């Protein structure tokens, strides 16, 4: 499934991030492919906030549509 389809509070594993630069930036933030995070907040039709440990990242809707995740 896509990151966009998550519901608030769900834990997920990142499967793939297609964009090169976004992937590099995500690894720096600690969100490499294979890592586990939680969907913290969904702004209606807007960005999605995910959290890993104490790190919170905001992803625009377009990005959330492109990132493949699986529920755990």
């Amino acid at each position, binding site marked *: 499934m896509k990151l966009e389809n998550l519901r608030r509070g769900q834990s997920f594993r990142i499967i793939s991030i297609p964009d090169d630069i976004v992937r*590099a*930036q995500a*690894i*720096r933030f600690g969100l490499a492919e294979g890592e586990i995070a939680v969907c913290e907040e969904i702004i209606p039709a*807007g960005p999605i906030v995910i959290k890993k440990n104490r*790190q*919170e990242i*905001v992803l625009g809707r377009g990005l959330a549509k492109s990132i493949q995740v699986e529920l755990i």
Partner: protein
Amino acid sequence: MAHCHDTGLKLAIPENVKKIVLAGNPNTGKSVFFNYLTDLYVDVSNYPGTTLEISHGKMDEDVIIDTPGVYGLSSFNDEEKIARDIIINADIVLNVVDAVHLERDLFLTQQIIDTGVPVVVALNMVDEAKRQGIEIDYQALSSLLGVPVIPTVAIKGQGLEKVKNTLHSATKGRITPGLKKSLTDLINRVGSQGEALLVLEGDEVVASRHGILPGKERDKVYMERRKRVNEITAEVLKEVRQGASFATTLGRLMIKPVTGIPILALALWLMYKAIGVFVAQDIVGITEETIMIGMYEPAIKGLISKYVTLDSILGQFLAGEFGILTMAPTYLLGLLMPLVVGFYFFLALFEDSGYLPRIATLTDRVLSSLGLNGRAVIPMILGFGCVTMATIVTRILGSDRERRIAIFLLGLTIPCSAQLGVIVGLLAGVGIKLTIMYIVVIFSMLVAAGTILNAILPGKSTDLLIDLPPLRIPRLANVLKKTGVKSYGFLKEAAPLFALGAIIITGLQVTGTLEVIQNLLAPITVGWLGLPKEAATAFVMGIVRRDFGAAGLTSLSLTSMQTVVALITITLFVPCIASIMVLFKERSKKEAAIIWSASLVVAFIAGGTVARLANIFSTGNEVNIFAVTIAFVLLSIGAIAVTKISRKKLFSTFRV
């Protein structure tokens, strides 16, 4: 073989002096270290082609250089490029790490260690970490990284002295496993481990400096480094407990639309009270009226008249109505500077408290329909201060496409503080209904222009991808320093533009061109906008200074409706001469000319449309303002729909 690179930053540093570079993620408290380590005299140099200022100062015999906060070293944005060049040329790096975000921050630490530069780590904010239930074994961290690690609470001064005494014991740390072999081959080709690492990680800029192709190993190296950092973190970090604090709850409320919009409205209202009322009226009253017009201008005119007659052409250029030494400094220093300082102060406040990324999150949805993303909220807010400043700040946006859209919207729809003051004054005289109409019309234009540009410009805008830092009480000293540095940066960049603007305007005036333009505009003014011929003068004055344009209307006897039509036209109409200059500086000549003429045409179309609608929806002397407003909004929606449909048609034609 000697490797000399022009890294852009010109610092006169003698050979035998050690370059100690401060590095760290954003908001780790680097600046407190900088202030502690350096003596009173700090130099600020502008990094060419950016709005970034790099501070450097002396510590005993050595030089301390600050770098922008970054999450990693590469060429993704200006901050990174600058930090990268300064760090790989450092003798010692003092890496400030936020103990609360160890896992994130250590990525940069490990990357700096991988460049082979000697490092000391300051593990900052250990008190906050402790409060949040995080315990870090800093000795274990030190032996795993292979560099000294000093726990600190910088804002309380704890550990700073130890950091200073440890700097010269900096060591080259343990590099990411598996990296050594790939690096060794490259080092022979490019000369230094730092450059070799960046080439390996696919940094195009560094690779091209050596005339070689960038490596394709970024993913592999990044993943290895991430793995290493996660292992280190797991070993040294112990979480005792995790509880939601008030700051966490407030942070959440700030990004949810239901609560976030009222909070944002409150913040903007406070900002308006502080800048729009206190600075714009009280402070500017002193700086512009009393100091610049009352004291400075007579003095400079007196001085110049000793050498040149003021009526002569040279006298006009120097100290005439639009002179380089009269209008330009009065406008820039007396009127704009206090407002710019006010805006930068609030921006620094929002930034340091962690509110700014939350505003970006909240507004992302709206801005992305205009082809921008949440980050664009920064130039948009600044635009209300000074469009010239905001146009420069669009450099922070992720793509050229976004800059193009943002610059056009800024020039077209955002009235700057200088103009806003006069507009508010004039609107006060026309009543609430027409005021609402004015706001709705300008807002419709913003939405329509953004949506249409987003639909017709090729390419795709970037998505929001930001880190949400914890909310903190900002430190006033830091906020003031940021405000000072940015305001000074603006002054340096804008002063020549305002001077050039003054020369052009005086040139137009002494040659009589200004009058010719006014006469040329007259038919449009009278026939299309339904305004008296003299209003054309106000429009042209609007180019000189945006507030002149609006102020020029006060002397005309206009009906309320005419006033609003003129105000709409003037708001949308060309930005002031300085922002036209900055437009040509920031964009290509062709694009700047298109943006400029497009905003002219759009301004007259919008103003005229409102005038026409007012004619249609009037019975006798009564104009149905409500109907005019609704009709305008519908026309804007219609324009958007037509663009979208014709674009679809265009695409399907191409496909066939």
